[in-house]
């Protein structure tokens, strides 16, 4: 096992409002990211994946549990800037809303360098900005452009360059390709792979696009209603899923290949979207949508256990099937 860059242990996050119920966005999430590796996080909207992203970079405090970066606990900055900003950076979905429309590319990059005291003179900052652009395969001619003069793919590359300015160890990428045109997504994905190989970066890659998550991630954590329900290496998690929710999610992705749509894929994952707020039902939170649910699932909440080496799932049915026949795929395909 390599060096652990980031570790979250039993993290919970609750939001209280004056009126209305307590919202429990995260219910005890534990994840770890090793140096140079990618953890993919998938799940439907409302599962808590973006809340987790904000906690991981210290933008918000956890209600309970700990987040540690390089062994030091992460806390949100009080007033000033976070001491963790040099270690972890967040890249958002929409590059245009994360770039100041009034700043040229060089000013946006220079601002970061200045704040962190990374380049003292104006010339040094410009030179460093040009070098950062080169890392994301943009030429020096982009230095003096404004965000509106950039395409979506170019703007996202500038946002990545800005995140790299502080030489972080970890990037938290929250849907980094979702706002981009199909033809430029590949370019950003290739860039992320190259940067990881060259700089030894670690990534937390959050997306609802399972094909992209599969492509980039070493490990995948599947979230449902604020909790991780399955976790493990990308291949086993997506291709021989232990949790019926993962299987349903993977089956629901339309594959761009007509030869694979001869039959209707998978089982319908249930008739209702997960509730965005309020309490999930007793027992397993997935049981109302689950085709395999048994009486025990309505009363006892399953724990996330290592059912196969390195492969965790929170499912009574999967746990029993693995115990009975360790070789057989637990969810009928």
């Amino acid at each position: 096992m390599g060096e652990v860059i980031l570790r979250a242990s039993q993290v919970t996050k609750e939001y209280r409002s004056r009126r209305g119920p307590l919202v429990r966005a995260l219910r005890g999430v534990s994840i770890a990211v090793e140096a140079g590796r990618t953890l993919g996080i998938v799940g439907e909207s409302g599962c808590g994946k973006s809340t987790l992203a904000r906690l991981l970079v210290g933008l918000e405090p956890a209600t309970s549990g700990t987040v540690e970066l390089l062994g030091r606990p992460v806390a949100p900055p009080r007033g000033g800037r976070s001491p963790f900003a040099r270690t972890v950076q967040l890249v958002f979905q929409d590059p245009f809303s994360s770039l100041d429309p009034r700043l040229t590319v060089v000013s946006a990059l220079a601002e970061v360098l200045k704040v962190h005291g990374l380049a003292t003179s104006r010339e040094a900052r410009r030179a460093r900005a040009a070098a950062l652009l080169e890392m994301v395969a943009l030429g020096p001619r982009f230095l003096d452009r404004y965000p509106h003069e950039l395409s979506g793919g170019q703007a996202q590359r500038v946002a990545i360059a800005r995140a790299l300015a502080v030489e972080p160890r970890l990037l938290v990428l929250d849907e980094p390709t979702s706002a981009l045109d199909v033809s430029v997504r590949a370019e950003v994905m290739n860039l992320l792979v190259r940067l990881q190989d060259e700089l030894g970066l670690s990534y937390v890659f959050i997306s609802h696009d399972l094909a992209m998550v599969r492509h980039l991630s070493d490990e995948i954590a599947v979230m449902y209603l604020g909790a991780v329900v399955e976790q493990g290496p990308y291949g086993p998690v997506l291709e021989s899923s232990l949790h019926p929710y993962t299987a349903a999610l993977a089956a629901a992705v339309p594959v761009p290949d007509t030869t694979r749509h001869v039959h209707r894929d998978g089982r319908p994952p249930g008739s209702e979207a997960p509730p965005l707020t309020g309490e999930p039902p007793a027992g397993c939170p997935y049981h109302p949508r689950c085709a395999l649910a048994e009486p025990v699932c309505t009363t006892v909440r399953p724990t996330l256990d290592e059912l196969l080496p390195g492969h965790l799932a929170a499912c009574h049915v999967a746990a029993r099937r693995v115990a009975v026949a360790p070789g057989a795929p637990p969810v009928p395909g």
Partner: protein
Amino acid sequence: MADALLELRGVRIGMRERRRQREIVRGVDLAVAVGEKLGIVGESGSGKTLTALSVLGLLPSPPLRLLAGRITYDGRLLNELDDKALAAVRGAEIAMVYQDPMTSLNPLLRIRTQITETLRAHGADRAEAAERTRQVLGQVGLADPERVERAFPHELSGGMLQRVMIAMALAGSPRVLIADEPTTALDVTIQQQILELVEDLQVRTGMAVVWVTHDLGVVARLVDRVAVMYAGRVVEEAATADLFARPSHPYTAALLGSLPQTSTGHRDRLTQIGGTPPDPTRLAAGCPFRWRCPYAFDRCTEEEPPLLERGSSRAACWKEPAAWAR
């Protein structure tokens, strides 16, 4: 096509300025038959949404307008109907579902009111309208149709609203459903339910479907025939299976290559399409894809290719796929 239910011929959409005309959709021919599902694929700015909006006279006008072309539905020329006649077609015969449900529902009215209003406008009596509203809300897989009926739009999630929009579109039992990225903002599980619902209805009622999307996965899953749009024109049209097996336009081939597929190795380099889609109002002469095309040659800079027959497909490319190997 003789049996076309809805047909677009030479559709041009754009702005008329003092001296010149700026076109965003530059001559589109499309047709959909009874019971057929047509996909329109393209990236942002390709003109796919405007093409869809033009059918029911819903272009944001001014500044945009139908500059030329004929839109025929069941023998009637839609683009020459007056507002009243067009309103009778809308909803009852051709229904449209938009990408963003929040902007197409009235925030001040209960869901029930909005659906029954549409039905009443097309001649249903109060009891019929109420009955049909309950029925369609159940059909789109909403778990608690009675609650949804009484709700205001802000009380529902995005997925629920999109299903309400689809229910509303289906309430009038239209013969053509035009859907503009209706599932793009939704989770894949909800998307799957909606695709299944549309397929079911389509099989049961013979409704024709025009599905506008950028998602090739949805195309593979849902439609029979695909039109790929680029820079305001259809650059390839083919049966879905043919398009995926043998793309006839380099842009289609590049789009397919840029997606991680089951056969793509983990972290392998994906095929990039260099550059970005052009602005269709500022095109130079020649093929608008030639800047990004690995197979472009002299002719491509001189003359924009028309849609040419390529086996069972049509593609706007001077080179046959067999000649792509430079």
